[in-house]
């Protein structure tokens, strides 16, 4: 196995993991604290991408567009919380799944009407378009390194917010026992709205970061939301640490599986058989991991301490 390729694919895996973390952190916050299954989380990811794409093309400035799009996505989360989610907290999970699935269809169609079916390509400033040459064989697109940097900074900020601030204390308390938090006189409604909007903003940020790579397209969120659920199930629902480690794990397993599974399979079966079976198995790999975790540790790898 080529060591340079291994390093390269590990970095690619970390980049995918950090994007997954941005989506999964919002999902785990909302699911863990509000006990609310939000399938439409992926729709917010898409919405972030489209809003950012429009501003990037209008202002010709990607960074400025992100700064404008972040509060707008948070606002979209705020509106959804007020109009839809709030009425469903007391209902059971199936109702929430149905309602938020409907929300996906509504948001997808709104995007279709407003931005058209074609999707949008997002131009980057010139200094982000190039590559960074680490060694002769290890060349990485600058932009992917920037995603890693942004992901790590966001993860650090979230860690600080959740573990070092009063607000974070309330969030953690809410994840452990929200009835008790309410009984202690905390305005739980406002806390919920804030958490929901924060989750929306994180999902939106992930969408904004990925759109210069994959373009903004309708339904882009449906792809990542399933993987994000795998992440939080593996990591432990409601746990920020679990979301981070789970995301890294899933990102690495997925990328390395796609890269090396066919060569590994070719060791003990014919090349043709390896070529056909490897893509199928690598697509299943993260679900196999999830199944194994569910059997051995149903609460996830790093569940929140008190539940």
């Amino acid at each position, binding site marked *: 196995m080529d060591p340079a390729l291994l390093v*390269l694919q590990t970095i690619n895996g970390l980049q995918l993991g950090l994007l997954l973390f941005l989506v999964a952190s919002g999902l785990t916050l909302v699911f863990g604290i509000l006990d609310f299954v939000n399938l439409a989380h992926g729709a917010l990811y898409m919405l972030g991408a489209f809003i950012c794409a429009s501003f990037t093309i209008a202002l010709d400035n990607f960074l400025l567009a992100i700064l404008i799009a972040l509060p707008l996505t948070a606002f979209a989360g705020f509106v959804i919380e007020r109009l839809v989610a709030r009425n469903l907290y007391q209902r059971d999970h199936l109702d929430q799944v149905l309602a938020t699935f409907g929300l996906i269809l509504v948001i997808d169609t709104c995007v279709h009407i407003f931005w058209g079916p074609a999707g949008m390509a997002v131009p980057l400033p010139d200094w982000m378009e190039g590559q960074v040459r680490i060694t002769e064989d290890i060349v990485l697109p600058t932009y992917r390194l920037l995603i890693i940097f942004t992901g790590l900074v966001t993860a650090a900020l979230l860690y600080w917010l959740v573990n070092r601030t009063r607000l974070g204390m309330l969030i953690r308390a809410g994840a452990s026992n929200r009835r008790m938090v309410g009984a202690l006189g905390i305005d739980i409604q406002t806390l919920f709205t804030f958490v929901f909007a924060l989750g929306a903003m994180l999902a939106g940020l992930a969408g904004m970061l990925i759109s210069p790579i994959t373009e903004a397209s309708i339904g882009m969120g449906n792809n990542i939301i399933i993987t994000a659920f795998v992440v939080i199930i593996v990591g432990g629902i409601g746990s920020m640490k679990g979301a981070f480690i789970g995301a890294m794990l899933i990102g690495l397993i997925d990328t390395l599986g796609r890269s090396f599974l066919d060569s590994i399979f070719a060791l003990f079966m014919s090349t043709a058989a390896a070529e056909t079976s490897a893509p199928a198995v690598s697509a299943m790999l993260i679900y196999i991991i999830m199944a194994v975790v569910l059997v051995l540790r149903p609460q996830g790898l790093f569940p929140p301490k008190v539940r």
Partner: protein
Amino acid sequence: MKKTVATLLAATILSSPAFAETVKIGFVTTLTTGGAVIGNDMKNAVDLAMEHLGGMAGDTQLEVIYGDDQFSPEAGKQVTDKLVKQDNVDFVAGYIWSNVLLASLNSVVNEDTFLISANAGPSQIAGVLCNENFFSTSWQNDQTPMAMGEVLNQLGVKSLYVMAPNYAAGNDMVAGVERTFQGEILGKDLTKWGADAQLDFSAELAKAKASGAEGLFVFYPGAAGGAFIRQYDQLGLSETLPLYSVFTVDALSLPRLQDAGFEAVLGSRTTQEWDPTLDNEANKRFVADFKAKYGGYPSYYGAQAYDAIMLIASAVEAVGGNMDDMDAVRAALKAADFDSVRGDFRFGNNHMPIQDFYLREVVIDDDGVWTTKVVQTVFEDHQDIYAEQCKM
């Protein structure tokens, strides 16, 4: 009351002619999800074809009913069943995706209804599964990549890395380029496809680069195409690993790439059976009116959809709207007596077109719009290789 109803009923029976006045065409394409960009182009072309026909095939009224396959074989089969059984359509046309077409084929052809594929051309339907009620106005999947393989030989490319989505057409495309390309294939990646398709190709591109191949062959239709080209460029591969693609750089991705000021795609080459610059009357009218109506170039998806409607109209007109005589309609379809936008058009024994394939290059037109033009004819009157497996 009873009497009135009976009178009305009698009147209806008496006034209706021997055959239906309106011939219904079901058109199945992708109208939601990321694939909607293709479906929208096809729908626009069908609407334009209906406008050019004045909604009539001779003296017979035509009606188009659209169906959305949602980019999935299950939903595609469902909407096909609905069109055939509930709407009683006489033709089902469309189908972007080979896997959707394969899932839907029997729901149409076994119900004495004609199926006209306007895009998908899976090898199975060209060969062992060929059916007398199936016709195509596109191509068999292998043909376009076979033309690209031939171009690669002419360019003297010695080794290739291959990437395609993992579904019926992806497999055919890979088989096609492998069939004609005489150099060595150094590696191959088949990526996840469908409504939750993989759009981030970092791992695969890293492998392609490490393989040391002289060229990269890809097939990424629709939204995935633009995404792929962006990532290919972000890695700075154009110097070391030139890109040779089919169904990836097209009239759907070019406007988005132009909006984003993405100039690396200019000059890139791809093979195709049709191009907006093809010099024939039908094509000139189609392209000019399409641009006037929708403000942009049609893609080959649109061209094939336009041809599908024109083929149906020619057959309906030839039989005077009498859809009861299936054999006569079939013979009229087989005759392909219509002005195709690609010029000459005839069917092989398996009802796949026998046609020319061109090499196209991305250029800037006189109005500053990014489009393609023909630089070379690669194959003349090319027939797919599965035709001999078809007992028809």
